[in-house]
C-alpha cells in the first residue's frame, strides 16, 4: 500500500520536474529571440563601424569585425568624414557636445519648472489653482510637433534661431513631469506641512528642506527619462538650427547620409551612431539604481 503510494508520489514529482524544465526552456528561447531582434541592428552598427567604406559600399553586410575600427572612430570624432561638394562635415565631438548640452539643459530645465509648478499646485490654495493645473495638463495634448509652426515663428521673432536658448526653451515646459511630481507631492502627508508651519518654516524653506530631499529619487528617475528624451530630439533641432556648429548628433548623423552626389561613408556614419548611443547608455547605467528606486519605492 505505502509502496504504491510512494511510487505514485515519485512519478508526480518527476513529471513536475520535467514540466518545469520544459517551461524554462521555452522561456529561454523566447527571451533569446527577443534579444536577437533588439540587438541585431546594434550589432550590425558596431560591426559596420570597424570596416572601411568600400566594404559596406559594395553592398556586403559583414557580420564580424573588420580591421579599421580605430581609424574610423578617430576620423568620426575629429573630422566627421570627408566634406562633400555641398555639405561640410562636422566632427562628432562637436555634435556630441551640442547634444549633451541640449539634453542636460532640457532635463534640468524641465525638472526645475515642473518641481516648482507642482509645488504651487499641491501646497497652496489660491484662486484658479485647478484652472492652472488643467491648463498645464491640457498641454499634454500639444506636443512640440503640433505647435511647431507657431513656436518656430515666436522663436524667429525673438531672434533665437540658431541659438542654444532657442533650441532648448520650447522643449522645457513639461506637463508630464509636472503631473508626476504632483502625484508624488500629494503622497507627502499634510502633517509634514503642518509640522513645518509650527517649526516656523516658510514655503520656500519647506520646499528646500523637506520637499526636495524627499523627491531625490523621483528627480533622478525623471532625469534619466528626460535626458534620453532630450538626446533623441530630432524635429525641433532640425528646424531651429541651420548653423552646423550647433548641430546635434541625431540631426547631424542624418545629414551625413548624402543625397547621392557622393558615396556615403557608412563606416564613419556607423561609428558616429555608436558614439551617439554611448551617453544615454552611460546615463542609464550610471543612474539605474536611483532610477529603479524612484519608480518603485517611496521613502516614508
Amino acid at each position: 500500500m505505502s509502496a504504491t503510494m510512494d511510487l505514485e508520489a515519485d512519478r508526480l514529482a518527476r513529471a513536475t520536474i520535467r514540466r518545469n524544465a520544459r517551461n524554462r526552456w521555452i522561456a529561454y528561447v523566447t527571451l533569446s529571440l527577443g534579444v536577437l531582434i533588439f540587438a541585431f541592428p546594434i550589432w550590425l552598427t558596431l560591426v559596420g563601424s570597424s570596416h572601411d567604406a568600400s566594404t559596406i559600399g559594395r553592398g556586403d553586410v559583414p557580420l564580424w569585425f573588420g580591421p579599421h575600427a580605430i581609424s574610423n572612430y578617430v576620423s568620426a570624432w575629429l573630422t566627421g568624414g570627408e566634406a562633400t561638394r555641398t555639405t561640410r562635415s562636422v566632427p562628432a565631438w562637436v555634435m556630441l557636445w551640442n547634444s549633451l548640452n541640449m539634453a542636460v539643459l532640457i532635463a534640468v530645465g524641465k525638472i526645475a519648472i515642473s518641481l516648482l509648478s507642482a509645488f504651487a499646485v499641491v501646497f497652496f490654495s489660491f484662486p484658479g489653482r485647478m484652472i492652472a493645473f488643467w491648463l498645464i495638463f491640457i498641454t499634454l495634448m500639444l506636443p512640440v510637433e503640433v505647435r511647431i509652426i507657431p513656436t518656430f515663428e515666436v522663436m524667429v521673432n525673438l531672434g533665437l534661431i540658431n541659438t542654444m536658448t532657442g533650441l532648448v526653451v520650447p522643449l522645457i515646459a513639461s506637463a508630464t513631469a509636472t503631473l508626476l511630481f504632483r502625484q508624488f507631492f500629494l503622497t507627502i502627508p499634510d502633517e509634514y506641512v503642518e509640522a513645518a508651519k509650527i517649526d516656523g518654516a516658510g514655503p520656500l524653506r519647506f520646499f528646500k528642506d523637506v520637499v526636495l530631499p524627499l523627491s531625490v529619487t523621483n528627480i533622478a528617475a525623471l532625469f534619466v527619462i528626460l535626458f534620453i528624451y532630450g538626446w533623441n530630439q530630432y524635429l525641433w533641432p532640425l528646424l531651429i538650427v541651420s548653423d552646423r556648429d550647433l548641430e546635434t548628433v541625431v540631426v547631424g548623423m542624418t545629414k551625413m547620409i548624402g543625397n547621392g552626389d557622393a558615396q556615403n561613408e557608412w563606416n564613419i556614419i556607423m561609428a558616429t551612431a555608436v558614439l551617439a548611443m554611448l551617453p544615454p547608455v552611460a546615463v542609464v547605467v550610471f543612474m539605474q539604481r536611483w532610477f529603479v528606486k524612484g519608480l518603485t519605492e517611496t521613502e516614508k
Partner: protein
Amino acid sequence: MATLSLDSVKKQFAATQVLHGIDLEVADGEMIVVVGASGCGKSTLLRIVAGLETATSGHVRIDGRDVTALEPADRDIAMVFQNYALYPHMSVFENMAYGLKIRGMKPAEIRRRVDEAAQMLEIGALLERKPRQLSGGQRQRVAMGRAVVREPKLFLFDEPLSNLDAKLRVQMRAEIRRLQKRLGVTSLFVTHDQVEAMTLGDRLVVMHQGRAAQVASPMEVWGRPADTYVASFIGSPAMNFLAATMEPGGGAAALKAGLAIGFTDGPRAGEAGMPLTLGIRPEHIQLGQGGLDLAVDLVEPLGSETVIHGTIRGGETLTVRLPIPARGIGAVLPVILPWDAFHIFDGSSGRRIEPA
C-alpha cells in the same frame, strides 16, 4: 508657562457648523484633555488653537495675548502629531533641532537643548538615527522631544498615543503625564480614548457635536455627568439608561420596568409623570434577591470580573459588571439596583437633574 483662553470659538466648514462656540479657561500648567467621539470637533478645536485652522469667529488668547490672527510659528506653541510627522530624511537630532535652527538659534545652544531633552526622554543614543530606524515608542519620544526643545508656552497633543500598541500606550501615557508635570507646561491633549482622558487630564472637556458637553475634573465627569451623552461616553462598559417617570412629590421615580427608585440625595423639581432617564453604572449593580430579574444574553469573562449583558422586564437592556468569575452564571440573574447609585436625567433633553 502660560494660560490659554478660548472665547466663543466657532468654526464652520461650508454649510457644516463644526464648533458651536467653545469657551474655555486653562490655568497655567494645567493639562486639559479634550475627549469625544470622532467628528465631534475636538481635532478642529486643537488645530484652531495651533493656528492650522482659522476660527470662523471667536478669539484664542495665550497668556492674555490675542493670537487669533497669528501664524502657528508666532504663537509659541509646540504640537505632537498623531503620526508624529517626523521628517523622514532628517536624523533625530535634525528633527528636534529644525524648529530652533529656523528661529536662528546658535548651534551651541541648539546642541545643549537637544541633548538635554534627549537625556530626559532617554533617546540620547538615537540622535543620529533616521525615523524609519526607530520603533513606534521611540518615534513618539522623538516627537515629544521636538516639542520639548522649543520650550513653548503651550503643548498641543493630537491623539499622539493612538498609533501605539496597547502596552506601550499605557507606558507612554504615564510618561507624558510625568513629563508635563515636571516641565509644568500648559497642555491641550486631544483623544477619543476615555481611559487616556481620565488618567491624563487635570480637567476634561467632553465634546459632543461641536459643543463642550461638560468641562470638569475626571472624577467629577465620572461621578456627576452633565448629560446622558457624557454619562455614556465616560466609563466602560457604558452606563445603563432606564426609562422612568417622575412620581408625585419629586422624591422618587417609577421605572418602566416596574420598580420604584427613591432619590436618596433629595427630591427633584418637576411635575409628576414627567419622563426621566435613570442611569446606573454596570459596576454599581449588585447580585441579590428583591430587585429585577435579568435574562442573560451574553457573558464576557474578564478574569476576576465578569460583564453580563441581558434584558429586564419591559425589554430594556442592562449591562452588569460583577466581581465574580463567569462560571456558574445561569440564564436568569437576580440583581439589585442600589438607589444611591442612580443618576437622574431629564427624559427629553438628557440633562442631569440635580436635587432641588
